């Protein structure tokens, strides 16, 4: 089964700067989701982008999807200390005769320094 791979594994920036995280995957997808996980907490859904979409915005978040390169990026603009978290991409993984499941990448740890 495919798996999203985030890049970089860790990113440290100053408050106010933009943060860009990338995700690559292996096979065709119907959609790709991004989640955030604060330390010691569960994952929180951020945004879903469908395979026929190229870009999506939600507040300070901008997600792009390039299905020809099998990659997605998450941009957080004007970062804040509260954005410090791990960010995961997840792809829908489906095999004929089976059920859909989300396959998560290993995540990017973002640290925003005040």
């Amino acid at each position: 089964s495919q798996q999203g791979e985030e890049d970089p594994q860790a990113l440290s920036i100053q408050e106010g700067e933009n943060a860009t995280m990338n995700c690559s995957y292996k096979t065709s997808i119907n959609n790709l989701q991004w989640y955030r996980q604060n330390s010691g907490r569960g994952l929180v859904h951020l945004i879903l982008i469908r395979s026929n979409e190229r870009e999506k915005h939600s507040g300070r978040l901008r997600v792009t999807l390039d299905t020809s390169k099998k990659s997605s990026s998450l941009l957080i603009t004007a970062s804040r200390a509260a954005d410090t978290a791990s960010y995961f991409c997840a792809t829908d993984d489906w095999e004929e005769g089976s059920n859909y499941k989300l396959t998560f990448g290993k995540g990017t740890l973002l640290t925003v320094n005040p």
Partner: protein
Amino acid sequence: DTAVSQTPKYLVTQMGNDKSIKCEQNLGHDTMYWYKQDSKKFLKIMFSYNNKELIINETVPNRFSPKSPDKAHLNLHINSLELGDSAVYFCASSQGPTGFDEQYFGPGTRLTVT
């Protein structure tokens, strides 16, 4: 009014013991999941239930047995605990079992086997 809740939050036990983790969602969702997150933050699905029916059963030792008494509850029982079972276990739910449904995660249960 927590959406997805899990108990206990922490569980410390010895090898060979049997333990259970409980999960409840009040979102009216049809689908619930158990995930395991290892020390490197890799998140992997274990089980999924849709309307109390098991629909995903990944390659998990049969020492792990999920049970869904109703749509709102999904419990995980683990027999003969081993050191390698130490991880954070997350329960999640979604409206339906498709890859287009965002998932709502519980706060996690940190299991430590000594």
